[in-house]
């Protein structure tokens, strides 16, 4: 018990978060839990992007493409070869990670600017590339997957705990995403706190200095790329399972943008950031278009245009505003507000803790 009492405050926050997300499907409808599953999927891929951009200081505008690799791996394995869908998740992750690792090798020679260019071009051509091997990917038609039914033990456990009806397939998928997301966040947390994380941050903050301190710069940079792609691949696999449908149009360039926006808005270089980023990336387009639809004073014509253009305008404006005024994202805002509150409460002179360095993304 004394261990519990002495646990740092952030452990309490984590416990609270886990409880909220674990109990969520009991409070919302089955369809809504599927929506939240997509939030968690976004959180996973943004976590991967965050490891790359926020911690190792490389940029990728092509994470939508990595997601596509993962999603198509799962879809093809399940649809064509009838592999067990749970087994396809790690396969998709590893395969995408391998792709990312090999893409990371030419990326080593590129400055961040060129890397952005190359990955951007990759994101643009991905839909066309997917369409080509038509007997494998079924071209523009896409691949339809049957919804996955929960296993008996999970179903009866859920019914036993909630005392309600058995688990639906949407709820099962939510829990699948939840478990995977929790595991991957835990892994990321451990990576950034330990040797690899310190090495990555050292590279981000000064490549030459890092190399002089004995950090294997090339190795860690490709590792970051591969790891980041692994996250995106797992997220893509879960996405294919959750939505039950993949097509080339599922992975447009704007998806890669959206992911980067999520990473930036949540907060680069923080562990909680991607979760906020996932929530934001998923809900912003939905909420903004629903909000406009319900407002009577906005003419129908404007509302229908806003449905298409609204998210882009909001994303763009937010991205610029956040980069100018709060480069550490939501998490940075919360932390600095908390630090200010504490120093106000405890009086001036107290050393402020928990603040991010003023500019962690130096390249």
């Amino acid at each position, binding site marked *: 018990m004394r261990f519990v009492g002495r646990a740092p405050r952030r452990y309490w926050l984590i416990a609270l978060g886990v409880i909220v997300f674990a109990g969520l499907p009991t409070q919302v409808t089955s369809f809504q839990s599927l929506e939240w599953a997509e939030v968690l999927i976004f959180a996973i891929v943004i976590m991967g992007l965050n490891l790359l*951009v926020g911690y190792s*200081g490389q*940029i990728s*505008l092509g994470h939508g493409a990595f997601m596509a690799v993962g999603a198509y791996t799962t879809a093809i394995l399940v649809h064509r070869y009838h592999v067990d869908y749970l087994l396809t998740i790690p396969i998709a992750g590893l395969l995408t990670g391998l792709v990312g690792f090999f893409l990371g090798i*030419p990326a080593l*020679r*590129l*400055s*961040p*600017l*060129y890397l*952005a*260019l*190359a990955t*951007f*071009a*990759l994101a*643009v*051509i991905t*839909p*066309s*590339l997917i*369409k*080509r091997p038509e007997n494998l990917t079924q071209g523009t038609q896409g691949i339809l997957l049957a919804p996955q039914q929960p296993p008996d033990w999970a179903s009866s456990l859920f019914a036993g705990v909630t005392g309600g009806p058995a688990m639906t397939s949407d709820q099962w998928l939510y829990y699948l995403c939840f478990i995977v997301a929790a595991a991957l966040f835990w892994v990321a947390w451990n990576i950034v706190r330990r040797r690899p994380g310190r090495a990555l941050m050292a590279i981000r903050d*000064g490549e*030459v*200095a890092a190399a002089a301190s004995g950090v294997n710069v090339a190795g860690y940079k490709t590792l970051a790329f591969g790891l980041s792609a692994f996250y995106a691949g797992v997220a893509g696999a879960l996405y294919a399972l959750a939505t039950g449908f993949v097509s080339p149009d599922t992975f447009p*360039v*704007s998806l890669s*943008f959206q992911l*980067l*926006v999520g990473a*930036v808005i949540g907060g680069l270089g923080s562990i909680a950031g991607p979760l906020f980023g996932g929530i934001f990336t998923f809900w912003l387009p939905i909420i903004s278009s629903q909000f406009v639809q319900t407002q009577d004073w906005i003419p129908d014509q404007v509302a229908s*245009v*806003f449905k*298409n*253009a*609204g*998210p*882009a*305008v*909001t*994303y*763009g*404006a*937010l*991205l*610029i505003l956040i*980069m*100018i005024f709060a*480069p550490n994202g939501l998490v940075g805002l919360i932390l600095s507000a908390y630090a200010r509150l504490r120093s106000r409460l405890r009086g001036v002179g107290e050393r402020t803790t928990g603040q991010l360095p003023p*500019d962690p*993304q*130096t*390249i």
Partner: protein
Amino acid sequence: MQEFLQQVLSGIASGGIYASLALALVLIYNAMGLVNFAQGEMAMFATFLAFTLIGRGMDYWIALPLTIAIAFVGGIVIQRVVIRPVERAPVLTLVIVTLGLATLINGLAGFFFGYLPRLFPSPFSVQTIDIFGAAASWQDLGVIAVSGVVLVLVFLMLQRTTVGLAMRAAAHNPEASRLLGIRVSWMLALGWGLASAVGAVSGIMVAPILYLEPNMMQTVIIYAFAAAVLGGIESPLGAVIGGLIVGVTVNLAGTYLPGVGGDLQLAVAFAIIIAVLVIRPNGLLGRRAMRRA
């Protein structure tokens, strides 16, 4: 042979368009070491303005310079409002800001002009004339001529005027320029304005071919990236040469390589980008980049 010549010629025409946009990218890269991901969207927006002006009954040859002038002012305004606050920020921040700008302009264009593809008027007829046995369309020749004039004008301005000299100096060595009384920050803004104007030309030239809609420039910008990287991203002349090479290569690959039709032509541009970055990262005319700690 005849078909080959014809493809080369229309490749040069699209190459001229890519060259203009690539030149715009190079201008901004030289000014602040940044690839402007919003360049294509800015050009697209300017093209919509030209479309609106022409739609209101304005003559094409008045609307064209007027739009270019508006784009010039617009570029300066964007630099002052959006870019200046993050001027000294790390490259990553700048890249993200221009991406935000691209998304924002794309959304605004959708908001104001809608997503329906529109037919953009062209002053050049689609009729063909005979050049060395190849049938060249007036459209292609006109695009080549306009792009050529613009590129020459920009070149003259950069190399032969005092303002051009000041701009180059500000980009090359900001501190020394500041000591000499050059207003460096305004020179950057001027660079943005110039880039925006040159980009607008590429948008207006490509619109009759591609149909005007908010996502029109998404493919063109990739070709322009390829052109700029191929030419060496800091060399204006390289951007023009790169643009022509990319235009011709992509056109020929689309015609003669089996399976590389339509949307896969973009993959050719992607392959060019990757190949250049891996084999010769400084491009054809770029100086060797020095790495500093």
